[in-house]
């Protein structure tokens, strides 16, 4: 009797559970499935003087050879070299997940004898990508928008100096509000562990001193476990990442590893005691790739967009002043504005701009009237 009762109770429990069970706990799985189907894309920019190991590091990070037929210039050709922007796109796949990886390189950066404003072409390139996305987003057919925006910029700092140089500071300051900057301490096999620590502290101090906003790792929630928090703290203390790259495989202690062979020893690229390569790779590819894309989309791109719209409204007001004030509605923007903008922040901005416009119009009308009366009096 009890059993039956218990059974029926259990049955009713599961029935209740069935009644309470909705099923949206499977949403993450659905997202996973859809995203695998859609595939991912990521644009990485590498910048820094030549000879700091950028190409080697990119090859090591993604375990491919992107720079097969590269031609390096001689010193005399580089005396007046200008900065170019080159793009390499590869499609790589791992366990069914497809990634379209674009590497944007900046050959010629910092190589000429006169490097004034050499960062300009890089900043222009990033802005161009933003502009193109802005136009696509505001267009009528939005099915196949290609996202070419730069998600992350690895900036290579030379280990041969005492810290940041004027060129580094200028570059980072020009770009820190356009792209996520991750500073890298290149060719770290020239520094002993104590030198690495000193340099990292010095560089972090200088970054703060000059007000450079590098990419900040998102703080972990307070309810995460201690291990995770410890890892997160270590990650933050490792900026800038001291990396070593290698395209060759050497034999060390019986194992075949990626490394550099010296008469005095073998540097293993993937040994955390030797360099921060593993940390960088984990951060870039395994844990923070999506966050980098999100920050680009939500912060840098939105900043660009807001600035763009502001400057456009200013242009329109100028046009109107010239055309002697017609009180038309705001439909003569050069690009049609998409109604129902998702972000409330930009909506607020637009509303503020409208107010400003109206005020300016009224003021202009007043001035115009004054001028008319003055003319009449003569």
């Amino acid at each position, binding site marked *: 009797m009890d059993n039956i009762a218990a059974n029926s109770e259990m049955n009713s429990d599961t029935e209740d559970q069935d009644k309470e069970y909705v099923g949206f706990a499977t949403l993450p799985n659905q997202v996973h499935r859809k995203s695998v189907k859609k595939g991912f894309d990521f644009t990485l920019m590498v910048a820094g*003087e*030549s*000879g*700091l190991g950028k190409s080697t590091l990119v090859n090591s990070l993604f375990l491919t050879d992107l720079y097969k037929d590269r031609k*390096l210039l*001689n*010193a*005399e050709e*580089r*005396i007046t*070299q200008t900065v170019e922007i080159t793009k390499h796109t590869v499609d790589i796949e791992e366990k069914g997940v497809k990634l379209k990886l674009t590497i944007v390189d900046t050959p010629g950066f910092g*190589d*000429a*004898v*006169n*490097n*004034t404003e050499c960062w300009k072409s890089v900043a222009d390139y990033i802005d161009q990508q933003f502009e193109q996305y802005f136009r696509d987003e505001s267009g009528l057919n939005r099915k196949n928008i290609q996202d070419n925006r730069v998600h992350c910029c690895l900036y290579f700092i*030379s280990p*041969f*100096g*005492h*810290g*940041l*140089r*004027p*060129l580094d500071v*200028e570059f980072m300051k020009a770009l820190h509000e356009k792209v996520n900057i991750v500073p890298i301490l290149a*060719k770290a*096999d*020239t520094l*002993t*562990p104590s030198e690495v620590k000193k340099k990292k502290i010095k560089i972090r101090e200088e970054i703060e001193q000059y007000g450079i906003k590098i990419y900040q790792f998102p703080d972990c929630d307070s309810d995460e476990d201690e291990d995770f928090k410890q890892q997160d703290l270590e990650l933050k203390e490792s900026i800038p990442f001291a990396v070593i790259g290698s395209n060759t495989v050497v034999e060390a202690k019986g194992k075949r590893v990626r490394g*550099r*062979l*010296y*008469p*005095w*020893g*073998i*540097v*293993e690229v993937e040994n955390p*005691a*030797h360099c921060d390569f593993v940390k960088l790779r984990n951060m870039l590819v395994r844990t923070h790739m999506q966050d980098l894309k999100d920050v680009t989309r939500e912060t840098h791109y939105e900043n660009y967009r807001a600035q763009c719209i502001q400057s456009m409204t200013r242009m329109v007001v100028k046009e109107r002043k010239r055309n002697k004030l017609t009180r038309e509605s705001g439909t003569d923007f050069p690009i049609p504005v998409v109604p129902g903008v998702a972000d409330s922040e930009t909506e607020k901005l637009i509303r503020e701009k409208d107010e400003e416009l109206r005020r300016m119009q009224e003021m202009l009308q007043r001035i115009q009237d004054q001028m008319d009366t003055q003319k009449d009096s003569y």
Partner: protein
Amino acid sequence: MASLDLARQPDKGARPLSLAGHVGFDSLPDQLVNKSIYQGFCFNILCIGETGIGKSTLMDTLFNTNFENFESSHFEPQVKLRAQTYDLQESNVRLRLTVVNTVGFGDQMNKQESYQPVVDYIDRQFESYLQEELKIKRSLHNYHDSRVHACLYFISPSGHSLKSLDLVTMKKLDSKVNIIPVIAKADTISKSELHKFKIKIMSELVSNGVQIYQFPLDDETVAKVNTTMNGHLPFAVVGSTEEVSVGNKLVKARQYPWGVVQVENENHCDFVKLREMLICVNMEDLREQTHTRHYELYRRCKLEEMGFKDTDPECKPVSLQQTYEAKRQEFLLELQKREDEMRQMFVQRVKEKETELKEAERELQGRFEQLKRLHAEEKTALEEKKRLLDEDQSSFNKRRAAAQLLQAQSLTANGKKDKDRKK
């Protein structure tokens, strides 16, 4: 002593004589050596390289002391040079060493003028030596020779090739100083990369016509060593003043998690080669080259600039003194001429100014006259008008009086008529 001494050709007028016994003048080199030891030696090294590339550390390592240099900042607005002089002694030989370091080299955004302070420094040292040489009362043997004898150019270990700044700077310096390029911080380049790097650097230097210092091959005792060393240029060096115990010895080294780089191990880097070549074998040759080649070139250029020549327009040899006298006369004449010219110009200008002023005065006078005339005219016109007005007024008054009189008369006439009617 070889029978064929290439350094000295037998004089046409002197016949070679063979000696019957030992005279003793083979001690002349020893006398020279004793004298120079007594005087002490002097050597000046210039180190050019980016900030932080390891110039001071290498100097400390080379001379086994601590030269007490501090870290420079990367944010110097211009390249500067910092010279420090030290007195060193090894056994009974005294050396006065001057180390000149560049500060802020390679840090600026625009590096087009970076080589200029270095070139100016080298020229200044040459100039002060030249001045001393040309003095009337001079003391060359006591003079502290500050000319740069060797220039160590530190190349950054990029592994690809020279930087554009390196090429431009070395091209400007190769005719003024002995350049010895070294690859700094060479513990970041593996052996195979180093070989390719050295070849690339040398080929770039050759194709751009940069003359670096070649170790001399004319002295047989050191020719062989020097030839091998010339093939190892540029030297890949690692500097360190810290000592690490390897085996059971303490050696100068850098300790990494993956191994220990020993500075004096020839397998690890070329430091020993550099020390040998620079200090042990060729120091005196560097000084000689500086004096006989670079300084002479500077002196010739400078004197030619001032107008001195070795031969007359008629191709007769002219001594410095005559040229100097001629120059002096020329200069004085020129000075006189210029003074006269200036005086003439001054007088002329004064005259011009005077005529101008007179013109102006006349003009003003004319205008004043005209204004006065106009004024008088207007005055007469106005007086005329006033007279007319007065006349008008008086006639008007007369008419008014007449009219009033008429009116009064008519009134009385009307009154009489009324009276008449009433009657």
